């Protein structure tokens, strides 16, 4: 197994709905999507965002787009104009998720 950051196999986009941030995670190639489904679970994302996401994490699958959508509840210090965060809209959480490391088969990226 090889350990890689998600940025090697996926791209992402994030935004806000009130105090909830959404992070869309998109496989760079169709063959990477099953790995994302298997490895990037809601629990794993909750653990990854410890200290940032204070609520639950929900995950939705979009196999047609090779993408997962995560909702990170209670992640924006109240959200919108209430928030004291520099990133009150969670715009950079996409990149934060791409920091996650997962184990993949050695020859997968060749």
């Amino acid at each position: 197994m090889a350990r890689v950051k998600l940025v090697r196999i996926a791209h992402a986009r994030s935004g806000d709905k009130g105090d909830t941030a959404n992070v869309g995670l998109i496989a760079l190639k169709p063959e990477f999507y099953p790995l994302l489904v298997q490895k990037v679970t809601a629990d794993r994302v909750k653990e990854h965002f410890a200290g940032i996401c204070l609520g639950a994490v929900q995950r939705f699958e979009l196999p047609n787009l090779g993408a997962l959508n995560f909702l990170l509840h209670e992640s924006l210090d109240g959200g919108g104009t209430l928030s004291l965060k520099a990133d009150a809209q969670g715009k950079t959480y996409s990149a934060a998720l791409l920091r996650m490391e997962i184990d993949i088969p050695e020859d997968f990226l060749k």
Partner: protein
Amino acid sequence: MDWETIPNLADVGYPIIEAEPDGGFVITKHAGTGGRVTIESVKEQLLYEMGDPREYITPDCIADFTSIQLEQVGPDRVRFSGILGKPATDMYKVSISYSAGFKAIGTLMYSWPDAYAKAQAADAILRERLHRLGLRFDAIRTEFGGVNACHGTLAGEPSPEIAEVVLRVGVRSTERAPVERFTKEIAPLALNGPPTVTGLGSGRPKVEEIVAYWPALIPKTEASPEISVEET
């Protein structure tokens, strides 16, 4: 992704939809404008601010984003097809604004050497001062720009040689007075705190009244549209 390869970002136009009677459409852009319309860029836009992709509520219908099929049909042309959905809900979305107190955010920039340690020490001094003044806040938040403001602890520890760090402290309260008092505690930090600090050029932080957002639903039966045209 690949942001540095996106052409001509000084001349990006708005996207164009070429809609077809069956609900399919092509998304494209004017020739000669910057930006890029690819399956990748379209997917990122589709996922932006999404909740449950099977229940994407719009004013006209509930769209199922898991039914969308994408195809690159030419340079800067992506075709959408196969989109399914359900009728619109029986509710209207109401965007309500309400007054939710006050906040202020102060920033100071610390330079090498020991930029991060200086910013942390300044934060501790500030909090000690606020504590002694007996000020109560609903929230107080410290972030260190250049270190952890975007990604928290995921960013890891900064280099001890980090060139500069921005201390950013925000407070929020239902009362104006403690927030106002907080804004007077930032400048003294530059005079009586850790050295090699700057960034006070624009003066004391401003107290902002918070107009918060409350998205709500009302039954459509509660609202009856009425149009009147009056000549003056």
